[in-house]
């Protein structure tokens, strides 16, 4: 668990971060969202003491981080950054082995752990002997992730991890990222300015502006209960697409007809509307079998799906 208590930081006359407090629960992914210069990266870097706060307190797993040696603290926190920052003079294997070597792991242990991660991150084995410049951007970012995960730290900090990638590569890595079992066990703080990405990956989003927190909450809360105009406007341009991603079939369950019971592969009800639509459009089936948590099953068509969604929308409280 990470807790920030009234953290402030000034650079010269600029108040980069202004009395910020939040908690990140164990195994939760918190995304710091905002425009550039809003203080989100500064906030992130204070968590592993790359930047020291002027005032306030940061507690990780019950311990105040200012009482710890910064180098030791950082060895226990994974860090992924936009520019990846792989060492150009190290091979991929050596890059991944940096922290294990600092921790004096045995060679065999480093090797087997590296192999394991390479497999999980879908990197071909022959990259291990290559140098960073010989890899594509997407591969480099996977190596960056492997480097951060290799010692299995409980906390992972990510600074715009997919920012340097093209759209196609980005969405495929995001998907892998979401599916990666290792990451589900971690407490993650991630910085992004990409609203779609934030909604895709966050358990909770912390929307920031001018060094202050505007709103902190689940994607659904941000979308349906924005606290002010700024929060509303920030999401306005992509509202519909975000809603499709935030609302799942469970939410609109009551607006769906009973449907005819049918045998075949059933999808879980936590499928969001966007995913359900994609399945219906891209495959040759007209209907989708969904089974809810209570073992109840329904079949939906595209029309039924949109109708159910619209009814859900109008049932939501409006400001």
């Amino acid at each position, binding site marked *: 668990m990470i807790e920030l208590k009234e953290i402030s930081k000034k650079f010269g006359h600029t108040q980069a971060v202004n009395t910020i407090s939040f908690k990140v629960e164990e195994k939760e992914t918190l995304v710091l969202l905002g425009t550039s210069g809003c203080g989100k990266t500064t906030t992130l870097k204070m968590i*592993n003491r790359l930047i020291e706060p002027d005032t306030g307190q940061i507690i990780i797993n019950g311990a105040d981080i200012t009482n710890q040696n910064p180098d*030791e603290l950082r060895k226990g926190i994974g*860090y992924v*950054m936009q520019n*990846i920052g*792989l060492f*150009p003079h190290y091979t991929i294997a050596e890059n991944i082995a940096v922290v294990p070597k*600092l921790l004096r792991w045995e060679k065999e242990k480093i090797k087997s752990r590296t192999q394991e991660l390479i497999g999980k991150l879908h990197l071909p084995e022959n990259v291990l002997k290559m140098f960073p410049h010989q890899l594509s951007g997407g591969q480099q970012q996977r190596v960056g992730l492997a480097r951060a995960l290799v010692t299995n730290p409980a906390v992972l900090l990510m600074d715009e991890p997919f920012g340097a990638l093209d759209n196609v590569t980005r969405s495929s890595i995001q998907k892998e990222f979401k599916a990666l079992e290792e990451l589900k066990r971690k407490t993650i703080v991630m910085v992004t300015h990409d609203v779609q990405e934030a909604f895709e990956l966050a358990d909770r989003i912390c929307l920031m502006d001018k060094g202050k927190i505007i709103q902190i909450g689940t994607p659904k809360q941000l979308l349906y209960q924005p606290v002010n105009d700024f929060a509303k406007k920030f999401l306005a341009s992509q509202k519909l697409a975000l809603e499709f991603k935030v609302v799942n079939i469970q939410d609109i369950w009551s607006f769906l007809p009973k449907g005819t019971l049918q045998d075949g592969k059933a999808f879980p009800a936590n499928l969001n509307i966007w995913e359900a639509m994609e399945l219906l459009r891209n495959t040759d089936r007209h209907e989708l079998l969904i089974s809810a948590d209570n073992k109840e099953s329904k079949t939906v068509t595209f029309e039924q799906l949109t109708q159910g969604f619209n009814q859900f929308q109008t049932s939501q409280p409006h400001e």
Partner: protein
Amino acid sequence: MNEQQQTLWQFMQGQSDKLLNQTLQHVGLTFISLLLAIAIGLPLGILIARKRKLSGTVLGIAGVLQTIPSIALLGFMIPVLGIGAKPAIVALLIYALLPIIRNTYTGIIGIDQHIKEAARAMGMSRSQILLKVELPLAMPVILAGIRTATVINVGVATLASFIAAGGLGEFIFGGISLNNTNMILAGAIPAALLAIILDALLSLIQKMDFKKLRRALYVFPVVILILGGFYALPSAYGSTLTAGFTPEFMGRQDGDLGLRSVYGLKIHTIVISDAVMYKAAYAKELDVISGYSTDGRLKAFDLKILKDDKNIFPPYYAAPIVRNEALKQFPQLEETLNLLADKITDAAMTDLNYKTDYLHQSPERVAKDFLISIGLYKAPKNGHNGTIRIGSKIFGEQYILAEMYSMLIKGYTDYDVSTKTGLGGTKICFDALTNNQIDFYPEYTGTGLLVLLQPDAKVAKEMAHDKEKTYNYVSAEFEKKFKIKWLKPIGFNNSYALMMRRKQSKDLNVNTITDLKNYLDKN
């Protein structure tokens, strides 16, 4: 051309042990100083990359040191460090410092910030970041600095021979003094080859990829250390007294060679420039030096001339030598120059030299005072009837003579004068004369005979100890060979002489060169 190459080859073969010795010394000097420069420059570069505020000051100081002329720097070192290897290494170190500091600094600050941030974020300590990230990534740039420093050092190390630190400069400057092209080339070609080879080797290391580089970096310091060690090899030699001889003296029959063959003198000898030799003797760095009998520093530093009791030093009477064409072009020239004939005695010349060298009066003032004292001075006529070009070699006496001739020509004729003083040695001066760059300069009969004419040993031996014979011989030969005329001698005899500190000479009871030999044989 073919013949020239062969004789150069023969010279190098004949002197191969000396050549090897000098080359090893040269490599040794280069690398000892390089090693020290790296030991100082690298940490300094790292320091100013950490504390950028210091960078301006440190780079500024290193830059200023770099601009001090090398000879001047060597001169400054003598009072503090004496002569020999120490000041030479320090001087070379100073020249090597700037490129190493600057490249270490730019190499480190040029590293991508994100890479440094990643290193910190992974929990590397400052020293781990330095050793594992910053230095390896900056290494190609640092190596480029070391490469520059190496090439600079190979060049500047030739000057080390001026202060008795050895190296290929001994051949180069000896050759210039002795008018011996083969000797110059025997020093210059290996020096140039050294620079080219070292540069190429370092560029190979610089272009290696990171993996090979990492291995090379373990070997590199060892190689530098071994090469630096070369310098220590040749110096196993000892006698109770130490002699410092100029490169010219070392190579001459009427110099070191004669001392060995005629007197059988065996003394630990180092090669040193004329400019610092007297001071080094005064400072007890040297005991015996090969000076000139009219040198002002003889008086200034209280040195005593050892009597040449077996007459190996031929007479060196000074006289102006003039191109015949110039005598035709300027009819009044000869009689004007001859005004000074037989006017300056040995003692008078020593005194004049003392005034410039030690009292630091300008040669112009010394010349004028002297001409006034013997009643020859006349105010300049400011004539414009053609310009006479006067040359001089690069030591005090020649400047004074050039000034006197300039005043006489301006005062007694309608000609104008331009002076080209400070031509670096006999060969350069004489080449300037034969190539119509100057019209005349003061030369010495002994030099004319032994350096410029170089007759076979028999003729030389027969001539060399007789003032008249020598003068007549050089006059006739110069007329025949070069169309150059020797005018009347000025009077003084500036011959080679061995000298010691007066007190030491008295203490050891050494008054002649034979005394010196006997003393050395006993001790």
